[in-house]
C-alpha cells in the first residue's frame, strides 16, 4: 500500500501525500505550483487551453500524449511525467515548436497558445519527419482558437515537423524513462480514510474487493466524464477509485475472430484495432472527442456511463459486441445492447464494474458502415449516430441486418423493425428499402434538443440508412460522403 502519488516534473520527483480526491491537475499547476502558463478556457475538456503533455515510459523511452489538465484528476497522473508550457524553453532559447509559432504568427491574443504549443509538442515527439496537414488537424482538433483562424498554427506545425526532432526531451528520454520506471510499482494506492479517499488499486482483485466495500465510490478510468461532475456539476465525490493502475485491464488483443478491449484501454490505443476491423470504425474513433480526450478516455468508460449519445455503443451494438462485468469474484458476460435499459439506467449491479469488451470482427459477406452527424466535423457530439452491419449471401440477399442508432432515444438502440424489413431481401431491392425507411419511423420517437430537432433526427436516421444501403449496394463513397471516404483509406493502404 502506498499513501501518496508520485510523478516527475522538470526532471525531479514530486510526491504528494495530502491529496484531495477531487483535485485536478490544472489546479495543481496553477494554484499549487503557481505555474500559470497553462490556462483554463472551459473547464470541461473541450477547448484545449489547459493542454499539457503526459509522458509514460515505454520500452526505455518516454512517450508523450496531450491531455486536458482541467479534467484530469491529479491522482491519475501517478507514475508519469508532466510537461507544461513553461518547461519547454531553455533559458531564452525557445523550443522548436515555440519558435515556429512565433515565426508563423501563430498567436494573437495568446490565451489558447500554450495549449496549441503542447498539442504540437506531443505531435513533434510522436512523429519523425514531415507530417501531413490532415494529421496536424487531428492533433489540434481539441484546441480551439478564436483569433487566428488556425492557418498560421497549422503552418507552424507543418514547419516544425519538417525539421529534425532534436530537443531536450528527446535527449533526456532514456533518463526520464529510467526515473519513471523507478517510480513504477505494484502497490495499491490509497490516500485518505474510509469516508474520503483517492484509491488506485494495482490488481483486478484489489479493485473488486475495494469496490464491493465501497459501492458508492466513483470509478474513474479516463476522467473525461467524471472530471465534469466535479468542475461543472460541482458534485462532491468523496470516494474515488481510479482504475488506470489495474494491471492487465488496459490490454487489447486481436484473437483473429475478435478484438478484446480491456476496460482501461484508451480510445487512442483502440483506434488502430478498430480501423483494422473497418475503415469506418477508424474514422469514427478519429472523430470521438479530440486527441486529448482519446488519450485519456476509454472505450470501457464510454460504454459503462450509458450516455444516450455515446459514440461507440451504436457501433459496438451493430457489430454484436459483448461486455464483461465483474462483482467481487463473480464475472458475467452481456451483449452491449442489453446493458442499456433506459436513460440513466444500466444493467449493472451495485459494486459491479466493466472489465472489458469483446468485439467480433467482420466475417466474409458482412458489410459495415457507420456515420456520425454533428454540427462540426471534429470534436463534436453526435446529433445522430448510425451504425449498420449487413450480412449478405452470395446472391446479395441480406441474411442479417443489425442497425443501431445513438441520439434517437434515451439509450443507444437497435432499429428492429427496420432490420426486419430488410431480412431476406436483396440489397438492391428498392421496395424493401422503402419498407425499412417506413419501419424506422416505428422504431424511434426522437426528441428535440439543442443539437437537433426531432424531425431532423428522424430524417437523418432515414438518410443514414439510405446511405448505408446505397454504399452496401455498391455506390462509391466519393459520391455519398463529404469526409471519411473509404476509397481514400483504400488508396492509403495500397
Amino acid at each position: 500500500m502506498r499513501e501518496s502519488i508520485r510523478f516527475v516534473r522538470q526532471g525531479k520527483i514530486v510526491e504528494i501525500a495530502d491529496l484531495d480526491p477531487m483535485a485536478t491537475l490544472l489546479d495543481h499547476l496553477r494554484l499549487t505550483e503557481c505555474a500559470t502558463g497553462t490556462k483554463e478556457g472551459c473547464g470541461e475538456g473541450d477547448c484545449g487551453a489547459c493542454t499539457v503533455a503526459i509522458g509514460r515510459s515505454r520500452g526505455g523511452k518516454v512517450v508523450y500524449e496531450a491531455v486536458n489538465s482541467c479534467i484530469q484528476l491529479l491522482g491519475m497522473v501517478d507514475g508519469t511525467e508532466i510537461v507544461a508550457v513553461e518547461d519547454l524553453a531553455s533559458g531564452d532559447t525557445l523550443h522548436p515548436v515555440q519558435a515556429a509559432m512565433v515565426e508563423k504568427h501563430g498567436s494573437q491574443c495568446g490565451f489558447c497558445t500554450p495549449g496549441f504549443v503542447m498539442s504540437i509538442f506531443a505531435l513533434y515527439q510522436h512523429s519523425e519527419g514531415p507530417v501531413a496537414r490532415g494529421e496536424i488537424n487531428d492533433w489540434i482538433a481539441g484546441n480551439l482558437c478564436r483569433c487566428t483562424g488556425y492557418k498560421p498554427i497549422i503552418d507552424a506545425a507543418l514547419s516544425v515537423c519538417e525539421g529534425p526532432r532534436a530537443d531536450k526531451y528527446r535527449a533526456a528520454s532514456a533518463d526520464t524513462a529510467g526515473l519513471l520506471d523507478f517510480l513504477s510499482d505494484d502497490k495499491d494506492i490509497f490516500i485518505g480514510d474510509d469516508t474520503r479517499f483517492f484509491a488506485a488499486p494495482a490488481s483486478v482483485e484489489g479493485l473488486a474487493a475495494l469496490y464491493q466495500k465501497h459501492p458508492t465510490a466513483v470509478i474513474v478510468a479516463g476522467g473525461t466524464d467524471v472530471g465534469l461532475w466535479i468542475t461543472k456539476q460541482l458534485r462532491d465525490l468523496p470516494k474515488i477509485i481510479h482504475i488506470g493502475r489495474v494491471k492487465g485491464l488496459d490490454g487489447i488483443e486481436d484473437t483473429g475472430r475478435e478484438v478484446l478491449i480491456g476496460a482501461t484501454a484508451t480510445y487512442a490505443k483502440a483506434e488502430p484495432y478498430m480501423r483494422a476491423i473497418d475503415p469506418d470504425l477508424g474514422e469514427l474513433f478519429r472523430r470521438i472527442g479530440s486527441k486529448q480526450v482519446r488519450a485519456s478516455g476509454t472505450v470501457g468508460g464510454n460504454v459503462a456511463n450509458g450516455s444516450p449519445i455515446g459514440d461507440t455503443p451504436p457501433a459496438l451494438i451493430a457489430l454484436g459486441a459483448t461486455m464483461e462485468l465483474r462483482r467481487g469474484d463473480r464475472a458475467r458476460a452481456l451483449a452491449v445492447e442489453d446493458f442499456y435499459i433506459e436513460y440513466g439506467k444500466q444493467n449493472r449491479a451495485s459494486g459491479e464494474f466493466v472489465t472489458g469488451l469483446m468485439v467480433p470482427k467482420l466475417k466474409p459477406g458482412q458489410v459495415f458502415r457507420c456515420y456520425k452527424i454533428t454540427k462540426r466535423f471534429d470534436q463534436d457530439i453526435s446529433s445522430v449516430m448510425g451504425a449498420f452491419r449487413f450480412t449478405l449471401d452470395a446472391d446479395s440477399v441480406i441474411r442479417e441486418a443489425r442497425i443501431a442508432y445513438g441520439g434517437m432515444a434515451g439509450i443507444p438502440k437497435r432499429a428492429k423493425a427496420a432490420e426486419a424489413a430488410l431480412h431476406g431481401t436483396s440489397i438492391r431491392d428498392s421496395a424493401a428499402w422503402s419498407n425499412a425507411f417506413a419501419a424506422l419511423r416505428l422504431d424511434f420517437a426522437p426528441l428535440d434538443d439543442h443539437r437537433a430537432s426531432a424531425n431532423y433526427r428522424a430524417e437523418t436516421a432515414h438518410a443514414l440508412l439510405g446511405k448505408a444501403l446505397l454504399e452496401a449496394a455498391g455506390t462509391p463513397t466519393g459520391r455519398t460522403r463529404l469526409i471519411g471516404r473509404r476509397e481514400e483509406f483504400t488508396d492509403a493502404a495500397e
Partner: protein
Amino acid sequence: MPPSDVMVPDAELSVVRKSLPHDSAPRHVTGSAAYIDDIREPAGTLHIAPGYAPIAAGKITALDLDAVRTAPGVVAVMTADDIPGANDVSPKLLGDDPALAGDTIRFHGQVVFIVIAKTRDQARRATKKAKFTTVAETPIIDVDDATDLVLPDYAFIQGDPEAAIATAPRIFEDSFRVGGQEHFYLEGQIAMAVPGEAGEMLVYSSTQHPSEVQHLVSHALHVPSSAVTVEIRRMGGGFGGKESQASQWAVLAALAAAKTKRPCKMRLDRDDDMIMTGKRHDFRVDYRVGYDDEGLLQGVDVTFNARCGHSEDLSMGVVDRTMFHADNSYFYPQSRVLARRLRTNTCSNTAFRGFGGPQGMVFAERMMDQIAYRLGKDPLDVRKANFYRDGSRDRTPYGMQVTDNLLHELVAELETKCDYRARRAEITAWNAQSRILKRGLALTPIKFGISFTLMMLNQAGALVHLYRDGSLHLNHGGTEMGQGLFLKVAQVVAEEFGVDMGKVAITATRTDKVPNTSPTAASSGTDLNAMAALNACKIIKDRLFAFIEEKWQVPRSQVKFRDNQVLLGNRVMSLGELANAAYVDRVQLSSAGFYKTPTIAWDRDKAEGRPFFYFAYGASCTEVTIDTMTGEMKVDRIDVLHDVGKSLNPAIDIGQIEGGFVQGMGWLTTEELVWDKQGRLRTHAPSTYKIPAASDIPEHFKVELFESDGARVDTIYRSKAVGEPPLMLPISVFCAINNAVASVNPGTVPMLDAPATPEAIMKAVRAMTAGAD
C-alpha cells in the same frame, strides 16, 4: 495639429510596413504572458462567484441565503441591498442593467447575489446552496413573441420606396432569420479589485473599455472617478464581448473588495459566462424589393427586427450599424431601412465584431441571391450591376456619398485571380451528374464604414516618455486583445524616433495614465491611438528640434532620427545622448498626445451627415460541397482580396483577415444559440456551442492584401482599419451554400436561414424539392 499630410515614401520607412511578430509572441508561446488570472494574487485575496435564480422572468418572493453564508470558506454574501452607490452597470447609466438584480428577474442567469469566499471552488459550491422562492412569468424569448421595445423605431428613408417598389417591373417579399453569436473569447470574463487607502480602488479588468469600468465602479462605490484606477495589459480575446459586458464583474469585484477590505477576484466559469453575458444580436429580417429584368434594384423596404435582450446596453449603436450596412456595396435608388429593437427575457445582446453591420450585409447579399435566382442569372453579375458607381449612383440610404469606391477594381481582380467563371462552369457540370453531393460557389463583396457612429468616441489620447538613456515608454487608451494594436502603435513610435522596437516599452492600459478614453472597438484602435501617439512623439520632437537649433544651430530640416541615431548636420549621436543633453538643459521629454477624427459628422435625429471617415473594402470567393441527404457541409476553397490601405504590418493584418473570416464563417455555419421555452440557454459551453475547429478551414485558404496607394483620407501612414471588416467576408460561405442548395432544383429560389447548420441546410434542400417530382 495635422500629423501626416504628406505621405512618407515606403523606402524611407524602417519599422512601419514590416511584418513584425506580435510583441507578446515569445511570451504567449512560453506561457509567461500574464492575463489577469495569472497575476500573483496579493495575500488574503478572496474569490467571488455569482448566484442566479432558476427563472427567466418573474419575481423572487423569498431568498434564503443562510446555508450559503455558513458554507465552508464563505467570508461574505452580497445582494443588491449591499451596494453603497448606484446599482447599475448599463453603459449609458440608464439603470436598466443592475449589477445585482433585486426581486425582479428579467433573464435566466441574471445575477442576484455574490458569494465571497477564501477559494474560488468554495465560492462556486456555496452558490448552489441558495433557496429561491419565485413566481415565474412566461418569458418572451424571440422576436416573434416580443412586443416591448428597448428603443423607439428608427428609419432611414430616401425617396419614395413604396412607389418605387410598386412601379418596378418585378417585386418580391421575403423574410429570413440570421442567428446571433457567442463571442467565445478564450479568456473568460475576469476582474480583480485591490483596495487602497482613502477609498482608492485598483481594478484589473479584462475590458475593452477601461474608462467605462472606471466610471461604473466609481458610481457603484460612490467615490469620485479619480479614486478608481483600471488597468489591463492584455485580454485573451474580446471581439466586442468585453466592451460593455466586462463592467459587471469589475463592479462586483470592487464592491466585494470595498466591503471586505481585501483584494477580490471574480473569474466567471465558462458556462456562467455564456449564460450571463450578451451576444451578437439575432434578427428576423422582413423585406420587399422592386427590381428590373436586369436585376437592378429600384426600391428596397427592409425591417430589421432585433432581439436586444432584457436591456438596452449597446443596442442603439449596434442596430444603427445594421442599418448603415443594409446596403453593403449596393446602390438603393429609393429605400426605407427600418430597425425595431425588441426586448426579450434573454441576456442583453451587445457589441460583437462588426457591431450589427454583418447582419445588415447578410440581408443585402441574400437579397442579391434571391434576385439572381429569380432571374436565372449568376449572382455575381447581379451584384456587380448594383455596385455603387461614382456619379449618380453613389449615395447611401443614410445620405452619405461614397467617394473612395474600390469595389469594381477589387472584385474584378479577385474574379480573375480565383478563376471564378471557369469554376462556375465546371461546378454546374459536376452538379448535373452528382445526385447526393452538390457544390456551390459564391463571390461576395464588402464595404464597411470606419468611425464610431457615436461621434464623441472618435478621440484618443496617448502618453510618451523619452528617458535619458534613449528608451521610450508608450502608453495609450487602446487595449490589446490580440489584434496587435500595441505592436502597431509601437511601430509608429519607433519609426518616429528612428529606433528599434526594443527601445519602445509597451505598457498596460491604465486610466490614470491616459484618461477619458474610448472603447477599443469599431476597428478604430490603430486609427485613433497611433495618431495620438504620433502626436505625442511630434510634441517631444518639436522640443528637441528647438533645443538642437539653440544648442548646435542645426535647423530641424537637417535633423534625422534613424537607425538608432540622431543625425544633426555633421554630428551623430544616440537618442540617449540627445535625450540626456536635452534633460540637462531642462527640456520636457514627456508628452501626452491627442487625436480626433476630422471631417465626420452625424446627426442621428435628422439622419443626416457623413458618419464615416472612410470605407474599407474587400471580397471573397468560397466554394463548398453539401450533402443533400444529411445537410452536412464542407468548405473546399477560400480566396480573399482585402483592402487595408497601405498596411502598417502586413502579417498582423493578414492575421486579422484570416481570423475574422473564420470567426464570421462560424457565425454563419456551425455556431447556433438555442434557448428552451423556459428561457434557458442550452448551448452554454464548447461541448454544445461549436466554433470552427482547425479542420473546418480548407487547405486552399488564400488571403491577399489589395494593393493601392492607401486610404484617400489622412489616416496613420495611409493604412485602413482591419479589425471588423473581414468578419463579413465569409458571407461568401453562406451564399456558396445557398448556391449549392439552389443547384438541387435549378429555377427554384433557395430559402436558407443562418446559421447554415446541417439541419438548416437539410431544411432548405427539402424545400427545394417539396412539391416537385
